[in-house]
């Protein structure tokens, strides 16, 4: 690739190779939504246990968060994919990646949600109890709705973070976008840079859309004048 014409020619070649990259990013997106769903579900339960679960359950939840936040994502992928086959259990690559990255994300999400739960003033619980609500009822109707709203800002961070983690899934045999970029690179050695720029743009679009959606959700769910998240209010 030399000079301006070479660059334009290169961009055209990358444009023609877009189907190769799009096939890859589709896998990243599928994996992203699957792992976020697992992470949200498990993460919420872990956070509730850690805050309200008492000593034993709280400790177990904290240990879970410690383990899954402490192990590198790549190692988790290997363990979830190759581990079960030692016992004759065949886990397909997509499921293994969803569970490995999903549990990891749940550990992070649990801490986002735990922070939000603990940010709700204790007086609210006391007020709810004094009105005759049970503890569980107060948690479900008073605390959780506010905490979920509070978590949204943290989630948009988690979204961007795990979106990029999906590129690690190639180690279990998923041909995600970075691995697809190698096909372009092998066909056109001199276009390596452009291929990676194209991947970068795809991720910028993906994370922008995600954060835009979460931001819109945050605005939509905002209750004016209520809640601790009102800035300067």
């Amino acid at each position, binding site marked *: 690739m030399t000079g301006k014409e070479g660059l334009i020619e290169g961009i055209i070649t990358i444009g*023609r*190779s877009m*189907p*190769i990259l799009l*096939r890859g990013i589709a896998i990243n997106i599928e994996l992203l939504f699957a792992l976020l769903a697992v992470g949200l579900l498990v993460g919420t339960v872990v956070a509730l246990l850690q805050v309200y679960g008492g000593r034993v359950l709280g400790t177990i939840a904290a240990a879970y968060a410690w383990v899954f936040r402490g192990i590198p994502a790549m190692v988790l992928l*290997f363990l979830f994919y*190759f581990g079960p*086959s*030692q016992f004759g259990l*065949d886990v397909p690559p997509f499921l293994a990646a969803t569970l490995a990255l999903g549990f990891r994300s749940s550990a992070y999400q649990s801490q986002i949600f735990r922070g939000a739960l603990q940010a709700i003033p204790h007086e609210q619980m006391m007020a709810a109890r004094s009105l005759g609500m049970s503890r569980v009822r107060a948690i479900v109707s008073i605390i959780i709705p506010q905490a979920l709203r509070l978590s949204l800002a943290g989630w948009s961070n988690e979204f961007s973070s795990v979106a990029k983690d999906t590129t690690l899934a*190639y*180690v*279990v*045999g998923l*041909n995600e976008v970075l*691995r697809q970029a*190698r*096909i372009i*690179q*092998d*066909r*056109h*050695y*001199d276009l*390596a840079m452009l291929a990676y720029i194209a991947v970068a743009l795809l991720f910028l679009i993906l994370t922008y859309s995600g954060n835009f959606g979460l931001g819109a959700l945050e605005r939509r769910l905002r209750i004016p004048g209520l809640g601790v998240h009102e800035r300067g209010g």
Partner: protein
Amino acid sequence: MRKGLIGLIVLGFAVLVIGGVVAAQETYVVASDIPWAPFEMVTANGQFFGFDLDVMRCIAIVEGFDIDIKNIAFDSIIPTVESGKADIGASGFTITAERAKSIDFSQPYYLSNQAVVIRKGSGLNIVSALAGKGPTQSVGAQNGTTGFGWAEENAIGVTVKGYEFYPTAILDLVNGRIDAVIQDEPASQSSLAAYPDKLEIAGIINTNEYFGFLVAKGDPNGLLPKINDGLAKLGLSVIDPAGGMKELVVTPGSVWDNLLKAYFGPTNDEIEAAWLASKDLLLVDKDVEGFAAKLAQEVSK
């Protein structure tokens, strides 16, 4: 009219019988790290081809089984086969005693040596580049390959940088971050075609490595006899003199002969064009002989 009817009935039976036979065939998963030209390649539309993959397809046809090719990172192939998630590894694997501890190899099918690629005009040669006399005192190779292992063991006084993917090593060489890249000769030829003005082969290290296909330890599916028999049917025989070096003998005019001619020598673009023109013979008609002959004929056009 009557003839037509009989023909139709015969055809119908033929379809049923062939259908039954096809349906009864086992499908084995072949793991390969794609791309690694000319052994593993991809067309612009994402179809897999390359020497290893076409050889596996040919063996499957002559031995009567089906294959499903999965694109898997090189470092993950052996664990994938070991865990039974794939049945065969076909990815330019050098037969080594170390690897043979965890998996079983087929007969050797290719003799490869390591090429040392340098920048043109760098004033280096194969000895000085590997002795760290270049400006960066470092050489590159792909992680997990025998070229990398060779460099770690033998290139004293030079830093060996490991790369996840061979073309990135070539990119670093072109950009002057390393002085040489060590890689199997056929793959080196293919990278030279990309930078004919900038790169050259300084020399070949005669490592005498044999490539083999691999299966899980103990060959649980009984695939090795089929692969070895398939290699022989395609025209490759191995002479194994006691105490001497194994010799790969190719029958002239055989499928193997034609595949070698098609894949080793022409540029990647020429190979791809020839493959696209001949692929139906292999994938649809399952005509191994016809495919190899056409492929060799197309690249020489």
